């Protein structure tokens, strides 16, 4: 199972994605390494990794553990002039090699072990997955107990279900859906982690295990479409689940809500006179060219009083929050290796743009950026809110 040489590994990389053979066209231009947020701290950022493989320095590649700084943000892949699928192909495949060889930081091991045993990376009880709905001011039907078909299956995700900060986003989302009169339900205890970040951390077997459990659960119920508050779930269901035979329409909550913008406008009660900037999550934007850039911005601009300002890195040039590709579970490792947090760069950009609110649209981001607001000493100067939390603030109380 373990790979003997660079050439054997390159074969695996080529087979990993449809355009995998493009790796042969690498010009060694280094654009990938330049845009990589953690490239400065890697022994082998993408360009140098390809050079090492071409020189058959397989031992040198395996000796370094800095591949674990890769946050699978698709920055490298998005700027490659010959369109090599670096993130999904080269980098994720090298992570698989590292996992098989047993070279894995302890904190990532814990998250992967939790995902396999409990179906969520946080290591919480699967039975308590819907417990957040108990404190929710509106009913959130769990499909197993709900006899009627629904229009919308809302995939809440690990962090939206269990993380105390992200549960606030889930509750805001539930209130907005309820106010719009949307017929919806959640999987509750039948939901498992979407598996996206585990996959990009190289654990494709675990991804398949989790995805198959979700597919089995979703197949039991009647609904028209899936919406998800987590871009990783969106990405996995749109691009990876179809490979496993599950191809149902899926939209991110910002896309779904923009469709109902006129109804939302009628429900706004409180103007929010504030300068807001928006952070583009990698898995809504660059990843697999999902290109969902304008929908969240249009929602924000519809809120009375909101003035939208842009950070210097926006849309396809957005800088990752550091959570993708396993980074969510490698904060200690990343700090030890790089002594940098991308979230801090981002918070400083938001402050420089004059924003009072940093709006986000990914389940990883509210806690990550709130930490960075504190660690950069900007507490009280910048507030972090999911787009749907801002919509709810404008609608209620």
């Amino acid at each position, binding site marked *: 199972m373990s790979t003997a040489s660079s050439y054997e590994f390159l074969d695996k990389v080529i087979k990993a994605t449809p355009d995998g053979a493009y790796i042969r066209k690498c010009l060694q231009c280094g654009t990938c390494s330049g845009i990589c947020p953690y490239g400065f701290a890697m022994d082998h950022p993408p360009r140098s990794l390809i050079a090492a493989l071409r020189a058959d320095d397989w031992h040198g590649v395996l000796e370094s553990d800095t591949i674990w700084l890769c946050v699978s943000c698709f920055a490298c892949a998005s700027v490659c002039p010959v369109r090599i699928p670096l993130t999904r192909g080269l980098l994720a495949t090298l992570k698989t090699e590292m996992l098989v060889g047993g070279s894995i930081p302890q904190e990532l091991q814990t998250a992967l*072990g939790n995902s396999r045993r409990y179906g969520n990376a946080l290591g919480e009880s699967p039975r308590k997955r819907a417990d957040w709905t108990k404190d929710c001011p509106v009913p959130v039907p769990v499909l197993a107990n709900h006899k009627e078909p629904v229009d919308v299956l809302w995939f809440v995700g690990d962090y939206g279900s269990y993380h105390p900060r992200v549960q606030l986003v889930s509750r805001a989302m539930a209130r907005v859906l309820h106010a719009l009169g949307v017929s919806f339900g959640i999987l509750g205890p039948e939901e498992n982690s979407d598996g996206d970040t585990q996959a990009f951390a190289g654990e494709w*077997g675990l991804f398949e295990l989790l995805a198959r459990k979700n597919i089995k659960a979703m197949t039991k119920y009647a609904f028209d479409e899936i919406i998800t508050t987590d871009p990783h779930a969106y990405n996995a269901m749109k691009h990876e689940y179809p490979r496993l035979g599950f191809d149902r329409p899926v939209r991110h909550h910002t896309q779904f809500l923009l469709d109902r913008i006129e109804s939302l406008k009628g429900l706004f009660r409180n103007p929010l006179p504030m300068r807001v900037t928006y952070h583009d999550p990698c898995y809504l934007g660059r990843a697999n060219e999902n290109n969902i850039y304008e929908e969240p911005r249009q929602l924000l601009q519809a809120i009375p009083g909101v003035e939208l300002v842009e950070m210097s890195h926006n849309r396809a040039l957005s800088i990752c929050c550091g959570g993708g590709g396993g980074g969510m579970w490698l904060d200690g490792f990343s700090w030890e290796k790089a002594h940098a947090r991308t979230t801090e760069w981002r918070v400083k950009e938001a402050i420089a743009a004059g924003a009072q609110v940093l709006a986000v649209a990914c389940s990883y981001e509210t806690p990550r950026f709130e930490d960075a607001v504190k660690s950069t000493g900007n507490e009280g100067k910048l507030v972090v809110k999911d787009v749907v939390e801002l919509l709810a603030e404008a609608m209620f109380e």
Partner: protein
Amino acid sequence: MDSVVLIKFVPDLVEDLEIDPQSGLLDRSFLRLMPNELDDHALEEALLLKERYGGTVTVITVDTGDVDEALYTAVAKGADRVVKVTGEGFDQGVTDRELASIFHEVLRGMPCELILTGTQAVDDLDGFVGAMLAERMGLPYVGYVTKVESQDGTVIVRKEYPGGLTAEIEVATPAVLGIQAAEKPPRYVVTSKVMEAMKSGSIDEVEAPDVSVEDGVTVSRMSVPETGARAEMIKGSVQDVAAALARLLRDRGVIA
């Protein structure tokens, strides 16, 4: 170095524990079981020994429920043989003495140099099984072991003592060792390898030998620890806090 690893399954504390009002014991109907953490360390140490000195690793567990996945995971990690001992009523738990006797009987047909198990299990914290098994087999036992090395037909083990002391002890083999921690954290094995092990279906099932054991100990009641009154947070200015504190200390007779 041929070793045998003994694994006990304990309640997974991710789920809430409940006391069955009828029996006064742990309600096992909703329990989810997992390998005892220190037994997992014993497995890791055995795998490290196999990598270092060659030989085989055999894993034995008593089927108290939910054990298959962990056994396949052990195969995926490098165990050569996994054995599940089945028997009536095991889903209600097995006592330390029963475990030691069952392992003793099962081990009769399995010559090996080392028998490794966790030094204790989190469900009872007794730490009896390794020592009782060694006594029954007439073998030496060392517990709280954190490192094992082979040397000229004996093993040198590192044992932890309280107060930060460690000792290196030479032990004749065969021997029973209670592992406190493996030299490295237990390894992760990718899901695809566990799936492969599952497909090969390589768990040996052994019917439990008849053992009749006088326990001499009966659990009469289990209870959830009772929480005392919560701490009172004294708020206000420095002067207010100091005055309130002085008053409290005076009321309790600490100061005059």
